[in-house]
């Protein structure tokens, strides 16, 4: 695991709010994290926990209105992305930060050839001519494992299978050699064997190209296999963050513990029923004043109602560097 290097991406206190008729929805609350060069950060959490919204807020991909980034800093290569003009941000998107989305069936434009779609960012960001872009696009398709790449440039998305389309999406995201690749549940819409292929591909590309990756998923099994560090999100907040082995070995937050119990085990005695986390995810209206997990938490006490817990380190390292958790309860300390 690379350590000590300057982070390529440093997010501090990010806040995103959705303005709706029924009031404001606080989708992302003071989220901080960083990404070192070449590191892979896994982001887990259930639907609506703010994983995707956080990542889309970083580079202004959320429609505004209704979304509004309220505060925080997003430092990429020393520049605060939140302070950039729309045009400057465009120059970052696709060039410094690549994005791969969940559903490859709908994420490619059906009426343009894949070659055209891969060449677009090359022409815009790298200033390539059409011919250069075409050569590079063929290289990229070959790189993501599509056979007969040059010929396939002329094919349209509907002529590819789901897994192939996701490979094309990855080729687009990597076209301009970005520092950061954000993969938003890239394997969720694919069937299991294809999932494994895509994960292998990303692992391999990471070794070859050395970009840092944020991998959003709700599949803990995937995270265990590929990530260096894991960030667990709940109710728009980071509730726990740790190196991957540490998190699986020594989970601190009641939500993380519950989440790990919901994963079916392939070995050992078969449990009668899979564990579930009782209750519903919170509705994030109103500014957060209490712990978002309190209603579903077995360890909730008065303080959880009164005060939203801050992230605190549990291994002596600064918050964000080692293992930290946002919870008033801790497994070692017994509460009355």
């Amino acid at each position, binding site marked *: 695991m690379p350590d000590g290097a300057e982070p390529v991406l440093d997010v501090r206190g990010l806040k995103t709010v959705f303005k709706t008729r029924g009031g404001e929805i606080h989708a992302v609350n003071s989220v901080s994290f960083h990404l070192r060069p070449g590191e892979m950060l896994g982001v887990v959490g259930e639907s609506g926990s703010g994983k995707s919204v956080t990542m889309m807020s970083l580079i202004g991909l959320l429609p505004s209105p209704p979304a509004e980034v309220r505060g925080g800093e997003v430092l990429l290569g020393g520049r605060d992305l939140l302070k950039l003009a729309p045009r400057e941000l465009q120059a970052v998107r*696709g060039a410094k930060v690549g994005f791969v*989305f969940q559903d490859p069936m709908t*994420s490619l434009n059906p*009426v343009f050839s894949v070659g055209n779609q891969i060449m677009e960012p090359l022409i815009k960001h790298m200033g390539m001519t059409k011919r250069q872009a075409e050569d590079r696009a063929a290289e990229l398709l070959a790189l993501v494992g599509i056979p007969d790449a040059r010929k396939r440039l002329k094919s349209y998305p509907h002529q590819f299978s789901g897994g192939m389309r996701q490979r094309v999406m990855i080729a687009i995201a990597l076209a301009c050699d970005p520092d950061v690749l954000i993969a938003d549940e890239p394997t969720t819409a694919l069937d299991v064997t294809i999932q494994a292929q895509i994960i292998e591909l990303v692992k391999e590309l990471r070794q070859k190209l050395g970009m840092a990756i944020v991998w959003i998923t709700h599949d803990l099994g995937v995270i265990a296999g590929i990530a260096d560090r894991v960030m667990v999100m709940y109710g728009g907040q980071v509730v726990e963050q740790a190196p991957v082995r540490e998190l699986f070995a020594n989970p601190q937050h009641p939500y993380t513990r519950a989440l790990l119990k919901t994963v079916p085990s392939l070995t050992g005695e078969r449990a009668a029923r899979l564990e579930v986390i009782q209750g519903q995810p919170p509705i994030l209206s109103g500014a957060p004043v209490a712990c978002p997990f309190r209603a579903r938490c077995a360890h909730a006490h008065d303080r959880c109602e009164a005060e939203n817990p801050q992230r605190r380190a549990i291994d002596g390292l600064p918050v964000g560097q080692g293992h930290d958790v946002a919870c008033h309860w801790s497994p070692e300390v017994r509460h009355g």
Partner: protein
Amino acid sequence: MLTFTLRRLLTAIPTLLLISLVIFLLVDLAPGSPLSDVPLTVPPDVRQKMLEAMGADQPVMVRYFLWLKQFFWIEPLYGIDALLGTDFAQGAQRIISWQSKVPVFQIIGERLPQTLTVVGTAYLIGVLIALPIGIYSAYRQYSWFDQAGTFFAMAGFSVPTFFTGNLLILIFAVNLGWFPTIYDTNLEVVDWASFTKMLAQMALPVTVLALFNAAEISRYTRSSVLENLGQDYVRTARAKGMGEQKVVLKHVLRNSLIPVVTVVALGLPTVFGGAIVTEQIFKINGIGAALIGAINVSDLPTVQTVTFIFAVLIVMFNLIADILYGILDPRIRYD
């Protein structure tokens, strides 16, 4: 694509034959006689002679097959003769108008260009106005521009052309005197003065028709663009760092145009029908006016031929729409 086009052209033949039969029977069943204009003092035996001279005394099926032969064989021969100066037709009997006793195609040849000038210009302007309005309305949904666009589209679509036509005539031709009230069919554009005169007399009818068309097409464009703006591939385009102009005018527009093409292509022939009313109001001596005149005096050959040409236009534009789909959307391949 070529085989598809050929196949579609071939299947159009039985369709058109059936349509021609239905039109012929319907027109024939309609009440009225080609002699209703002839004074009652004309004795019955003379009337009978007149009917025989027109061929109107023949049974309906005989007249139908004669018309078919004339429409599909003899008239094209005359067309070739006129173009190349040959003599294939050898003086065969043409489709003759019962009213004016001149060949129907001669009437159409005189009247259709008038209609095409006005309707064609109006439709082109309508589409050119509607597309940007529809796109911008969708892009800035619920903005004041969108609200205003919605209002004018609703108004433009619900107020009939015979009302807006008369209103514009009253305001701009009668009260302000900017434009003539009557369209001069005989005006020929030979110099700058006659060109501006042509523009002036076209202004009002073109405005009426263009607004009506623009109202409808802008609505379709708006809803189609709106639907596509929410698609995942739009987010992908933005994530690639494409500018808003490229996102909307390349990625969204190409997808949005597919349903709009249907409306535009299929709307064109029906505009000829709608233009009949406008032609009456602005006294344009176009094909619509010719059709109305022919219906009034039971001039069956003219009614039949003009109506059938409208049917051919509809079938043709249907085919054009289908071909355009294939060009716009690679997922639609007919072969």
